């Protein structure tokens, strides 16, 4: 992972990228857009916002599509991969295809890394000031859980 300091993103970049992100916005509401394989090729520029408005049923699988958007420096593209499971979006990732360094910087923010399997390291062995996880449970919650565990054990 890089040590890059987070940089503020200008508004126009976010607004234009938002159009590409609609590919993944369907969530459980269905209508993600699969790769336009039927139209030939795997990277045809599409207009995700309009495609997503139609209700269709799609087979499960992984689809990749390329979205384009306008920037002050010209048209840019971003590749989006969507995995469908049971008709709903199970995973979405975005692959930047920058044609200039400025866009790369903005798209780098937009895309994410994936770590295949997280590995645990004992907290005691780490030199840390704090631990951040789920909220420590309240007294009442903890008591009730202990009670349930006690009853379940009998």
């Amino acid at each position, binding site marked *: 992972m*890089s040590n890059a300091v987070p940089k503020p993103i200008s508004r126009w970049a976010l607004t234009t990228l938002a159009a590409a992100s609609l590919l993944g916005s369907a969530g459980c509401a269905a209508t993600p857009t699969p790769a336009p394989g039927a139209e030939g090729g795997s990277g045809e520029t599409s207009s995700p916002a309009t495609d997503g408005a139609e209700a269709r049923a799609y087979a499960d699988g992984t689809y990749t599509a390329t979205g384009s958007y306008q920037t002050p420096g010209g048209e840019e593209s971003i590749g989006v991969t969507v995995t469908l499971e049971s008709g709903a979006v199970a995973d979405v990732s975005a692959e930047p295809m920058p044609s200039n360094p400025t866009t790369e910087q903005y798209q780098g923010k937009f895309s994410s890394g994936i770590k295949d399997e997280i590995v645990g390291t004992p907290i005691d062995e780490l030199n840390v000031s704090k631990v951040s996880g789920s909220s420590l449970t309240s007294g009442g919650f903890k008591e009730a859980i202990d009670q*349930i565990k006690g009853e379940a054990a009998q």
Partner: protein
Amino acid sequence: MSPAALQHSVRFEAIGTTWQIDTLAELSAGARAAVVGLVEEYDGVYSRFRADSRIAGLAYGGTVELPPHGEHLGSLYRTLYRLTEGAMSPLVGGSLEQLGYDADYSFTPAGSPCSAPVWDERFDWTGNVIKAQAPVILDVGAAGKGQLVDLVSQTLKAFGYAEHTVDAGGDTIHHGLPITVALEHPYNTGSAIGVVPLADQALCASASNRRRWSDGLHHVLDATTGRCVDKVVATWVLAGDALHADALATALFLVPPEILLAEFDFEYVRVHSDGRAQFSSSLAGALF
């Protein structure tokens, strides 16, 4: 030890979690009283677990006026309600009770999961005024703690404690020299999956490993279905304030980061139930 270590600590229990405030100099009695008063007041307004809280009145419908900061909470919830297509909602209280997470901590589901009411149909939260035309059970657990962390931080600043850490059960804001924070493993609380540096930012976490009362039942719900979310098991968000970090950490259970990055500036780690972790590429720190 670093010369600027925040070595004076105060610990207390409030809103269902343990708080720790670290400062350079010992907190004055006045500052302490202000913090305690603030936390008590917030709890008195928003607690779903208190029959005498201000929002408890909404269980009969009607109008409730919140403190001025209620406006920020409401407008952030409204934005996230839109971005998650209704999956993240403060109206989820009834759905949580249906699954057994009620004021008595019964942990006994009352029936099948039920979806939360639709925001604009019978519910309006404009400015710091909430109007409910029908009974609603408000639960601001997804963002309220973060906002309270910010309010405590602001109070500390007002009392002259510019450098401080406020840690509410792992939801933390820190001002001062960077500290290193471990990210707790969602399946093994004795270990960490990574570390991040924290300075002049907030770090909040959401996970379904705690506050889980029986197989498959925990506190992170999709409000549109009333069902628990199980594809994502833990999230962390680094943002400028704890209100946003807390709220976005929950929103990441419900929608992919891209949706939220379109309108918010933040760093994140998101752990899926299969053990994979997704993270913002500019995140400083390390995942193991």
